């Protein structure tokens, strides 16, 4: 139930982003709203919920992206696994620290894309794009994570626990 609401919220946010992006001419930065969702579910909830979140948000994101098959799910699952690795090792005491971690994970995701393209196809065509967008994406993912963290914490503590 709880995980369902979290995943649906994430999907709604991604749908809104896709729709709004076709209106606003934003090219330099496109924040990845799924990263704060996956990290929150992995770090503050049960591991199974984190895994389900990573899989379904990745699958949905791939549905509205021109990315090669499997690539987004690969990166999202890697984000989940790394989050599981750091779970208990880092102490997230504020939304700002959470946003910093989200920014770092966005950079990690870009590195994974580079790794995927070099390893499997040996194509360098997209490598410059990935490098160019990595930092702006990381910064803006981190920025929006502040608000998403507040939203998810509110949902987790007030709405869902009462229910």
């Amino acid at each position, binding site marked *: 139930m709880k995980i369902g609401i979290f995943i649906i919220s994430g*999907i*709604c946010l*991604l*749908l*809104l*982003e*896709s*729709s*709004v*992006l*076709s*209106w606003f*001419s934003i*090219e*330099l*930065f*496109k924040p*990845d709203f799924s990263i704060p969702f996956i990290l929150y579910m992995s770090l503050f909830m049960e*591991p*199974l919920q984190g*895994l389900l979140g*990573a*899989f379904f948000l990745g*699958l*949905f*994101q*791939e*549905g*509205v*992206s*021109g*990315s*090669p*098959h*499997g*690539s*987004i*799910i*690969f990166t999202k*699952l*890697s984000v*989940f*696994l790394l989050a*599981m690795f750091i779970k208990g090792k880092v102490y997230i005491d504020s939304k700002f620290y959470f946003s910093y971690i989200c920014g770092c994970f966005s950079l990690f995701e870009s590195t994974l*894309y580079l790794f*995927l393209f070099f390893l*499997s196809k040996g*194509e360098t*065509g*997209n490598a*410059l*794009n*990935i490098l160019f*967008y990595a930092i702006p*994406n990381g910064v803006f993912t981190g920025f929006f994570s502040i608000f998403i963290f507040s939203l998810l914490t509110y949902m987790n503590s007030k709405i869902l626990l009462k229910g």
Partner: protein
Amino acid sequence: MKNSIIIITSVLLLLFSFLVFTGVSPFVKGYSKIKATVGETTGPLLKLVDLPVRYIKIFFNSYINLVGVKRENEELKKKIDQLELENQKLVELEKENTRLKSILNIMNKNPQKMVAANVIGEDLKNLFKCIIIDKGRDSGLKERMPVITPRGVVGQAVEIGRGHAKVLVLNDTNSSIDVYVEGKNTRGIAEGTGGSKLKLKYILKNDDLALGDKLITSGKDGIFPKGLPVGMVVEIDRKKPGIFAEVDVMPFNNYKRVDEVLIIKRQ
């Protein structure tokens, strides 16, 4: 113990997604089925979300127009002076008009071969360039169908859902089109760079090509019909080492500002 099972499951899923990415046939087939099922819900949801966004857009544009009326009035007075200069451009516009009419004529002659669609979404990742349109399999769309506007080529349909489709735009690094230089015998491949410009590949340094030349589809790639406008040559570098020149092309369509498109149905 429970955590170990979850970690093992996620590693297996990670392996599965990697095998899908590398194109191992049985895994790709299985994954395509899962993705198609999820994809069937994506289109209607995106249309639903797009409705209020579209109304907000109309409201926002109307408000901006109202605020801008006074300033626009002053600007219009200045523009009257410029009109005489603009008259000189009429000849050029007439040519463009003829070209656009020819495209519209194609549609009027073959309405059953064209489908009009609205853009309802855009790629969530800026590493890839794709748009999502509100027509799909139900409207007779298939993969690799050309997507155009009266200005020229936008891209090609790559994934088709029941009521929506993904269009890979020209600017994507995976996109390439066989093109001719209009009125000349020069031919090359226009490839996406991921940025706003395209690269025109395999143009010899002594090929007949100049700044401002228009590129049209050659029809030899088996996807795009012959004669559709693609873009304009904006930069030529003949000094670089090798036998080929480096040519930059600005596409006629800015996919970020495209609201409606036409899809040419294959015969």
